[in-house]
């Protein structure tokens, strides 16, 4: 079991003591049991926090859109309407759960869960910090792609099972959009994998640093273009505007979840908002330095050296800083996603496919080649280090 | 529990299910499902022998190529199915029985 968070927490004395005590009390080596319990608890925490973030996402969306449109937005429930999402949740749970009579019951019930499973499974490899990552799989990003594709199946089946023409059109649009835009996204990811030399999230982030010039975003011109391709493709994959054709209100009522009501609809919505968060997190990890913080604050070693702080404390502080760094960047991107949604008009279907196949995919392939050539030609150095080194060598330093 | 025997057994079950689907169904897409099952069984076998026989990576490579081939086969196969449907308005395998035209 390759679990980073368990490894990190087992450094603490309390956990060691608890393990010893349990071993004594139960009469067998309890370390794996403790590890399992810790893992399960952390998983629950992550799922809970993410659900909350998903819920807050709806609130943020409404508030930001209101701001962009010079409105006030939700303002009744709680201060500044911040508890609106709880009210919505309660409403959804209490609503009647309707399954249309012509629907394919089995598939109809399964579809939202498939979406949710796909999204939650990806959370296993989202790198919140160097210590707080559920599992640093060595095929991390690849696993994430595979799991995220379940969402497409869910959307498609949701559309099919509803036995409604709006839903079916929405589902088919959604699935075709998702599998089409997976291609430029994956190729861009591969070009970043080429820079980092590994598939695991740890490797991908490990090649970057806290300062912006150490990010892969500014590593070379190709990765700079790649970021935008990835971001656009991610928007399309998560069915966000301006690519929200599967749920285009003006054409398809509400797309693949037209016939869903109550908590089933809630699950679709939740899955969508969490997926947006995950995708922003991946963009952060791949291009924006992930959880890295400047000046070695992440490991806490500088605190121990300069201030003489306790080592574990410094480490924990570093973790908190790293989590802060990650969330700051991710939520910044989250804001951009919402901003884009309320700024740009929706594309037509043919424009959508043209954008993917005639622009993004060729550019992504060009980027991949460009990255490969860059890595070969400049020995993997970033454009900043090249400039810096040339300046330094002119100045006579080495 | 995890040993070659169980893996072969699982792969065997997958294979038999694939054959059942392939022969029993009359829907071309369903037959393709059966073929996918059979391909999975063989890929699983390669991976299992890699692990339990010599831990060489070649079995994984073979499995990868099987997956690649399966993907290509699915794409072309489904293309043919759709074309066939355009021509005959049917995906019943017995409608594909004429040996000419």
């Amino acid at each position, binding site marked *: 079991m390759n679990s980073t968070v368990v490894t990190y927490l087992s450094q603490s004395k309390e956990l060691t003591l608890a393990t010893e005590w349990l071993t004594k009390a139960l009469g067998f080596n309890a370390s794996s049991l403790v590890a399992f319990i810790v893992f399960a608890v952390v998983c629950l925490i992550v799922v809970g926090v993410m659900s909350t973030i998903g819920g807050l996402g709806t609130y943020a969306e409404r508030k930001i859109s209101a701001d962009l449109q010079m409105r006030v937005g939700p303002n009744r429930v709680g201060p500044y309407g911040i508890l609106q999402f709880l009210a919505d949740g309660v409403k959804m749970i209490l609503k009647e759960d309707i399954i249309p009579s012509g629907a394919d019951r089995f598939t109809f019930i399964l579809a939202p869960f498939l979406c949710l499973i796909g999204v939650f499974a990806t959370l296993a490899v989202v790198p919140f910090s160097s210590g707080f990552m559920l599992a640093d799989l060595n095929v991390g990003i690849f696993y994430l*792609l595979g799991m995220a*594709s379940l969402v497409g199946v869910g959307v498609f089946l949701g559309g099919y099972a509803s036995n409604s023409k709006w839903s079916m059109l929405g589902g088919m649009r959604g699935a075709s959009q998702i599998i089409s835009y997976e291609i430029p996204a994956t190729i861009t990811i591969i070009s970043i994998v080429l820079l980092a030399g590994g*598939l695991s999230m740890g490797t991908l982030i490990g090649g970057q640093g806290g300062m912006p010039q150490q990010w892969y975003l500014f590593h070379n011109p190709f990765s700079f273009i790649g970021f935008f391709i990835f971001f656009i493709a991610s928007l399309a994959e998560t069915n966000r505007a301006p690519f929200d054709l599967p749920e285009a209100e003006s054409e398809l009522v509400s797309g693949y979840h037209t016939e869903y009501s109550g908590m089933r609809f809630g699950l679709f919505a939740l899955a969508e908002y969490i997926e947006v968060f995950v995708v922003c997190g991946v963009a952060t990890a791949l291009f924006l330095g992930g959880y890295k913080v400047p000046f070695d604050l992440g490991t806490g070693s500088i605190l121990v050296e300069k201030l003489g702080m306790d080592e574990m404390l410094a480490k924990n502080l570093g973790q908190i800083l790293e989590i802060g760094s990650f969330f700051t960047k991710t939520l910044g991107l989250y804001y951009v996603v919402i901003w884009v949604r309320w700024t740009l008009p929706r594309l037509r279907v043919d424009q959508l496919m043209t954008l993917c196949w005639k622009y993004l995919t060729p550019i992504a392939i060009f980027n991949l080649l460009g990255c490969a050539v860059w890595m070969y030609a400049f020995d993997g150095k970033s454009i900043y280090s090249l400039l810096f080194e040339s300046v330094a060598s002119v100045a006579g330093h080495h | 529990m995890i040993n070659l025997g169980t893996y072969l057994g699982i792969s065997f079950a997958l*294979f038999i*299910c694939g054959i059942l689907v392939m022969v029993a169904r009359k829907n071309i897409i369903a037959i393709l499902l059966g073929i996918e099952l059979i391909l999975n069984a063989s890929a699983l076998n390669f991976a299992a022998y890699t692990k339990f026989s010599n831990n060489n990576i070649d079995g*994984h490579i073979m499995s990868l190529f099987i997956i690649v081939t399966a*993907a290509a086969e699915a794409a072309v196969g489904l293309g043919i*199915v759709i074309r066939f449907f355009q021509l005959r*308005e049917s995906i019943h395998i*017995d409608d594909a029985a004429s040996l000419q035209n």
Partner: protein
Amino acid sequence: MFTNTLFLLSAALTIGGAFAVVYSENLMHACIFLLASFFGVAGLYACIGADFLAATQLVVYAGGVVILMLFAIMLTGGTANNFNRFGLEKIAAMGNKKTYFMAGITAVVSSLVLLKIIANVLRNQSSAALEANLPTVERIGTVLATDHILAFEISSVLLLGALIGAAVISRPRTEKND
């Protein structure tokens, strides 16, 4: 313990999915069960340390093949003509007792053959402790780019051919305007 649990779950998912594919009367459901079975196989790969294979299985099958299948099912729904061109009634698309009987015979014969082949393996189970699972990604990368480079290139050509072939085959034929 964790691996064993994962293994049991995956095996159950694999075999259960496969059997459900056999017995489901609805093609769409069969496809979903096939997806479950694929996930089980991915889990089985993960159990024996084939991490890259597991991820590939997920990406290719869940993200590609199953959605393609679903698309094909949707695109070929249409009219169900129950009579063939000779005016005889066709066998039900998802099979009937007769076809299942034939399939059963075929399955029994082939299972006899397979069991005969794997009998020795099943009889002589080695109980030696398993080696630790090593990461395979780098090794696969190295081997693909060195020993198996030809097969790798050929498979790329195969995929390109499949891409073009599928596009050409499924394109509606248009009348020439001259």
